[in-house]
């Protein structure tokens, strides 16, 4: 289904309102929408609602053989899916650009910043490591997918418990949840993405753009930071900023 086009008068209205420092939902320029996080019954399942944008996150794990050049590290795999429920325009063949961009940003933010200790995921060096898979599903698109997705990913990873493993010489024992309590992942820090929509070469910046504001923005700046004020990732796309 095609996306409903944005009319010119709506576009002009939004831009004029932003120039006067007003937002349609009454927020200030640096206000975030309300965040609501709820957990499911399985370990590693969470639903994050950022205003009306909704993301479901689920973490799962599996024992696999490690990559050849990283024999002592576990594998982290992220998969963000734009469900067809989220917006009528998200058809299977049609969203590749946005999807690749979002997935790549998620990977850089979470994998390259080394927030999860991958060395602790190693069971037998060179043979068996844990592969942690994070599946994120966008359920409703009301702007700012990347922030909601990064929150869902890090919350699901903190909530997740993997089965306990013990290694004695050559013998590896994998315990079921009934035998031994599952073990949490070791997380160094929690990077969260914050998006800024900018208009007119950076003269006007809005935090947490909603869907309408995203349609009229000139460019998007995403900064991922953690609690210790360290920047994990920066990405700027769209037109130039001065």
């Amino acid at each position, binding site marked *: 289904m095609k996306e409903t086009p944005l009319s010119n008068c709506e576009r002009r209205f939004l831009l004029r309102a932003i120039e006067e420092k007003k937002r349609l939902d009454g927020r200030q320029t640096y206000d975030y929408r309300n965040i609501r996080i709820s957990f499911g019954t399985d370990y590693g399942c969470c639903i994050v609602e950022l205003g009306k944008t909704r993301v*479901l996150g*689920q973490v799962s794990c599996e024992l696999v053989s490690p990559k050849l050049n990283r024999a002592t590290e576990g594998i982290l795999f992220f998969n963000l899916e734009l469900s*067809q429920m989220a917006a009528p325009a998200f058809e299977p063949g049609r969203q590749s650009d946005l999807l690749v961009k979002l997935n790549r940003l998620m990977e850089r933010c979470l994998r390259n910043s080394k927030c999860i200790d991958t060395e602790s995921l190693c069971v037998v060096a060179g043979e068996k490591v844990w592969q942690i898979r994070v599946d994120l599903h966008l359920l409703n698109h009301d702007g700012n997918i990347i922030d909601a997705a990064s929150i869902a990913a890090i919350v699901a990873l903190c909530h997740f418990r993997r089965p306990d493993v013990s290694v004695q010489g050559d013998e590896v024992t994998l315990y079921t949840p009934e035998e031994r309590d599952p073990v949490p992942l070791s997380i160094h820090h929690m990077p969260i993405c914050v998006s800024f929509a900018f208009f007119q070469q950076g003269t006007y910046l809005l935090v947490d753009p909603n869907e309408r504001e995203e349609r009229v923005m000139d460019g998007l700046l995403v900064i991922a930071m953690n609690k210790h004020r360290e920047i994990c990732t920066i990405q700027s796309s769209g037109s130039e900023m001065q």
Partner: protein
Amino acid sequence: MEEETHTDAKIRAENGTGSSPRGPGCSLRHFACEQNLLSRPDGSASFLQGDTSVLAGVYGPAEVKVSKEIFNKATLEVILRPKIGLPGVAEKSRERLIRNTCEAVVLGTLHPRTSITVVLQVVSDAGSLLACCLNAACMALVDAGVPMRALFCGVACALDSDGTLVLDPTSKQEKEARAVLTFALDSVERKLLMSSTKGLYSDTELQQCLAAAQAASQHVFRFYRESLQRRYSKS
């Protein structure tokens, strides 16, 4: 400006004893339903059966690709997404079952050359997944205002190795059962719309299960009715 019509009816219907251990063949797990929870789809519903939860979103009647359009009725499409991993053959087969059920019930001839898309997302799976998907799809179609000739519901039952019937089985009960049967029943005359079975069972057992499912569907339809009444009576 559009008004916030975010009325959600959260009702728990308890039928007999909803918690385990359950008596043979009498009770369903307690269920809850919430409608209109997503802003983008035309209709949306979340259906909970015990620990199994499915979220459904409906878009329609909407534009359809020329290659897929049918000249005299609406094109119904069902998409089921699992929580972990990519969708596989099991999802495709469930999508087809749900689509056949919906096509039997939705009045597609009122909207020719349009598409009605039902998207289902598994939020948690603790047994009776197909039945929960059917219920969520029905509630979402009602929320979207798609014209239907009847409502439908899904009921699952499992047969033990010694022949005991358990309605709405949990995943543990499904694994240990000899046969698992899922039925889709319509609301007007409790007729059978769809049945999907797995395992070994006899002819009489099939009739028994069908009768038990028809009795249980009464509870589900009463729950639908109460939930919709409560939702619309607030305003």
